[in-house]
């Protein structure tokens, strides 16, 4: 793998947040880091569609605000957050728990490539070729927490990497934002506990941007919709309510937008192009 460089506290691009750690690690870097504040979006791999939708919309919203979306390239919430960011051409940073050139899970190779192709960065403590061993992931989480200005937890069980990231972030003084969930759902339990322990509940994309701008300064642009569809996309089931149209009218409008090439379908999900 070419283009990778090893960076340490003495190097120019070294994220200053890492200096908050007791032993700032040396890292491998692929692609480019920017000075913009990074916001971590993390959560479980075993997420629901609800979680995916939210993570993707947060990823988009953060990117639209001109900030960097940070996550771990894992399945589920991480993937959705990266995808949301990349969809609108945002700056994404992925911190790996494997060697810098090892894309895990393998099906995220397109995301890995797109991050690099769109000016984002891949970071890892591990040299090229290191396999994705389970025990490396918690260590990776402390890097995510350290390089981010704030941490957003979308869905998390009480056991899991997302909670580790949140706790490490809190210890480093990073504000933690959490999506509240049903009390009887496994993948909300971790989130709800964080809220009980003092994290900020997130009430939606707009609310998140507002809260974040208090932490990292005002966003570069504002959250918007195009062709009546939120930039982060919407499920086709929700369109009639969103547009206040009957199902037939909704389908006609959607079909027209699609034929004009203004929206795209991802399964039953509709996103503006």
């Amino acid at each position, binding site marked *: 793998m070419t283009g990778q460089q090893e960076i340490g506290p003495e190097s120019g691009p070294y994220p200053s947040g890492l200096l908050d750690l007791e032993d700032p690690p040396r890292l491998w870097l692929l692609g480019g880091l920017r000075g913009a504040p990074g916001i971590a979006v993390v959560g479980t791999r075993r997420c*629901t569609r609800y979680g995916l939708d939210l993570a993707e919309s947060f990823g988009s919203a953060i990117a639209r605000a001109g900030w960097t979306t940070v996550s771990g390239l894992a399945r589920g919430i991480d993937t959705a957050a990266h995808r949301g960011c990349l969809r609108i051409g945002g700056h994404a940073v992925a911190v790996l728990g494997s060697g810098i050139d090892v894309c895990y899970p393998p099906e995220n190779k397109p995301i890995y490539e797109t991050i690099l192709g769109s000016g984002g960065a891949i970071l890892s403590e591990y040299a090229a070729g290191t396999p994705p061993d389970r025990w490396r992931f918690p260590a990776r989480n402390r890097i995510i927490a350290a390089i981010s200005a704030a941490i957003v937890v979308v869905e998390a069980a009480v056991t899991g990497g997302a909670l580790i990231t949140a706790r490490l972030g809190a210890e480093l003084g990073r504000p933690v934002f959490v999506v509240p969930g049903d009390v009887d759902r496994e993948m909300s339990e971790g989130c709800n506990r964080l809220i009980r322990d003092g994290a900020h509940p997130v009430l939606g994309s707009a609310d998140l941007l507002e809260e974040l701008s208090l932490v990292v300064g005002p966003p570069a642009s504002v959250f918007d919709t195009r062709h009546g569809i939120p930039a982060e996309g919407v499920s086709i089931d929700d369109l009639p309510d969103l547009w206040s149209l009957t199902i037939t009218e909704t389908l006609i409008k959607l079909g027209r937008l*699609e034929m004009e090439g203004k929206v795209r379908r991802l399964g039953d999900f509709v996103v503006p192009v």
Partner: protein
Amino acid sequence: MYAATISVALVGGDVRPVEVQVHVGRQNEQFKLSGLPDTAVREAKDRVRAAVVSSGIRFPNRSVTVNLAPAHLPKSGTDFDLPIALGVLAASREIPPPAGAVVVGELALDGTVRSGPSTLGAAVLSARTGTPCLVGRAAAGGVAAVPGSRVHGVSSLAEAVNLLRSGLEHVAGVAPEESVEPPEDGDLSEVMGQPLARRAVEVAAAGGHHLLLHGPPGGGKTMLARRLSGILPPLTGAEAVEVALIHAAAGYERGLSRQRPFRSPHHTASRAALVGGGSGVAVPGEVSMAHHGILFLDEMAEFPRANLDTLRQPLEDGHVTVARRGLTARFPASFHLVAATNPCPCGFRGDRRKPCDCRPALVARYRQRVSGPLLDRFDLVVKVGRLERDANATTSEPTLVVRRRVALAASRLRDGNLGLQSSAREMLDVAVANGLLTGRGGERVGRVARTIAALSEGESVEEEHVAEAMALRGEW
């Protein structure tokens, strides 16, 4: 001494006359049966002899030879008992020959006549040839509804003998019974929410479009599919006969119900069960039982791929050819395909509340179980989401209202005056040119747009119809 009676065999969803030829010779007592009888037919010898004797009639103690002609056609079932018995009695001059009458019925040892699956076939043959038919009393009223048939019902061999002695032409046939319609499979108004799927079901019904419903368990995919049969117009008289004949060939008595068949084979069903099989004689499969009705494949991706691909011939041709030892039969199989499938093996991919446990590679493999050419047959592909418990229960249209609209649209489609407006045509062409749709996809959208235009009582296919058709062409 020789006599012949006419009976009937069900072959490939149609009827064929079978001549039951009986010769009573001078040799010592014996009973021979030829003409490719199966075991059930061969055992007629014992039933016939016992029934004749029990009815107080002399059974000839001579050599009896029975041939079922055409002799190369395999015969099955017990409905040849009565024609054989009457043939034997006619050949031994106990009764006058039942000239031309079509006779079917199974004999009990005490001479009682029971109705078998060929009863309907006898009525159909009777209508076709203009001759009366003689069948078991139990089913006589039901099959008498076949237009143009003249049906006589008898409850015993003795009664049949008396009827023939007095001459069939002097006796009136039985009156047709109104067939009792089984209750509908539930009303469309019971489906909560799901406006998208509901619209797709209506369009599917009006235009005969094959429909694929996908989504997590518990969304009501099966419920919607069952209600689709309710909003289709009822079978015509001729269709009802066609359908009943196929069901009879499979050994089911359906009566002349106007309700469209709804067949829902399990995914473990064998290929023979799906397209037809049987040993010796050809038995129709689910695709034929669903003729003029709905074939519903629940959990389509769980069906073995090879079995699914056998559906392609009937989907293309509207019939299946079943080749069996001794006979190749063609069954009609023009059905409306409705399939339901989960998004992934665990069923919760894309669900808003429950996590999906499936690895991405597994999901990809799951979808590959349905071949592209088969997926291509579905003009309408819609998602059926899981219902939130607090779904606002807006009262939705009942089946009857939708059925009326669908019937109107269907007749408008049959009249075929719905042209594509130039702007609509252009819209489609541009979508194809831009690669948004494949050529085939464009045709599908055009077809669906025509149906939508018919439903909206338009004079021609307009842009908005094409747009809606486009939106109903989802992806699984």
